[in-house]
């Protein structure tokens, strides 16, 4: 009898909470939004990043005359801070994120800046070039997901290419003319963040609730943590990757 009573209470609570969460998520109010912040670190010796031989294109060589280019698969700062890790809520069921900052993927000195560009589904981003050499921007998603590969050239001074992706996917992007140029479009649903040079990140616009935060690193894989965010509060999730 008592058990049944408890169960009923629990059930109604869950239902209420669920309805509340739904309501909240449908009307995201600035006051109710929380955030998730943390740091991503590498526990161990940073893997060696090979230098890049750009001799195929003299322009690229010149651009890196004083600052030799290296691969950017695992970029580690002081204290093991991991850059370019994408954090997102993998069990997100809320609405799409409002377009805030303009997303720009720059081809600069024959490298991609940033190396990893995270974005929401259907969020617009721009591909621009700052170089005096022709690039081709060639993302290679799996068409099975609904994202369609395309391939466009950007000669010097070319106008920006504005695009978006339809489906959640980690999409490699490359320049065939400069085969070392390799970057990522990480398309997720919901709020996301990318770690900075200190390994710090903040996912904004998170309504109160319990979430699974996933950290993605291109070489080291993914990790997930459960995080609870109170109304207007901040959840915290720190991740530590081991070198492979």
């Amino acid at each position, binding site marked *: 009898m008592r058990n049944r009573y408890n169960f009923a209470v629990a059930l109604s609570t869950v239902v209420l909470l669920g309805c509340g969460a739904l309501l909240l998520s449908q009307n995201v109010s600035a006051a109710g939004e929380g955030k998730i912040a943390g740091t991503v670190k590498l526990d161990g010796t940073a893997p060696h990043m090979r230098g890049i031989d750009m001799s195929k294109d003299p322009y690229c060589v010149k651009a890196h005359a004083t600052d030799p280019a290296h691969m950017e698969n695992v970029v580690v700062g002081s204290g093991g801070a991991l850059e370019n890790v994408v954090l*997102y809520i993998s069990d997100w069921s809320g609405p799409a994120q409002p377009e805030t900052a303009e997303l720009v993927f720059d081809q600069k000195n024959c490298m991609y800046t940033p190396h990893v560009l995270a974005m929401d589904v259907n969020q617009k981003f721009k591909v621009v070039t700052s170089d005096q050499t022709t690039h081709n921007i060639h993302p290679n998603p799996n068409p*099975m997901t609904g994202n369609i590969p395309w391939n466009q050239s950007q000669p010097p001074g070319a106008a920006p290419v504005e695009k978006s992706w339809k489906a959640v996917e980690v999409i490699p992007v490359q320049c065939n*003319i400069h085969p070392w140029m390799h970057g990522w479009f990480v398309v997720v649903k919901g709020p996301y963040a990318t770690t900075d040079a200190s390994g710090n990140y903040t996912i904004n616009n998170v309504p109160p609730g319990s979430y699974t935060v996933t950290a993605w690193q291109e070489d080291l894989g993914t990790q997930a943590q459960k995080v609870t965010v109170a109304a207007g509060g901040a959840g915290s999730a720190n991740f530590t990757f081991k070198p492979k």
Partner: protein
Amino acid sequence: MRTTLQNWTLLFGSAVLLAFPAAASAQLSTYDIETRIGAESHVGNVTGHAKDAALPYRRYCVGCHGPLGDGNGENADWFLTPMYQKPRDFQLGVFKCRSTPTGTLPTDQDLFDAITRGFDRSNMPQWNTLSKQERADLVAWVKHYSPRWANEKPGAPIQIPPEPEVTAERIKAGRDVFARVQCWKCHGVQGMANGPSASTLTDDLGRPIAPFNFTEGSRPKCGDTDQDIYRIFMTGLDGTPMPSFADNIKPDEAWDLVFYLRTFMRQHSKEKDLAKGLGLKPVDPNAPAPAASGQQ
């Protein structure tokens, strides 16, 4: 390296998966495919039906393209040299020869033309002996392999202005376009497929691929008319390193470039004669890149 984030249980395993390069991407089962057996194609006044193409597909195509249309037929592994491209994976719905912009589906006519024309320097023959109906049925069959056709419409074919008269000025202007957008990075300054990046090219599935050598005397993959060549660089060859230049070459300049490209080709042409008269030198790969057309 293609990972769908929606399935996050998969993601935990993806650290392992990421260690492997992307292999064949076929993921659809026979059941998935059969749901689309009603696919149709419309080529001219002929309507093709996928259901009528099962037999011809088995007769002509399956040895290379495979029963699931994923390009894994019994012969797929035996096309070894980089010049031989592996058979197309129809499930991906990504096609080289289109009249539509990069990233869009080709029209039924594009697929029909590809079947009719075949692909030079590959093992895809010309199927122009088949009846029009049979080819249209096969187009529908090709479409039924990819879910893309159920969710998307083909792109709008690019507009090709009428071909202007070939003049020496146009050929010179074409050479400037060739230099500006740096076609030579892959195709070489003389169109001999020996540009600095030529040896490193791979297709979307990570397989080595060679740029087109204009001087060999063979036909371009997507057809040999001036319009066909125009289309190639204005739509890009999806699935290959060849990008679309639609944003960076104006329609009029595109014709100039077509004429200039003709001067590389072994086949005799008016363009070749004119270029000879001009004494045109190949573009200088070390010259600073010319200004973009938008800034001229």
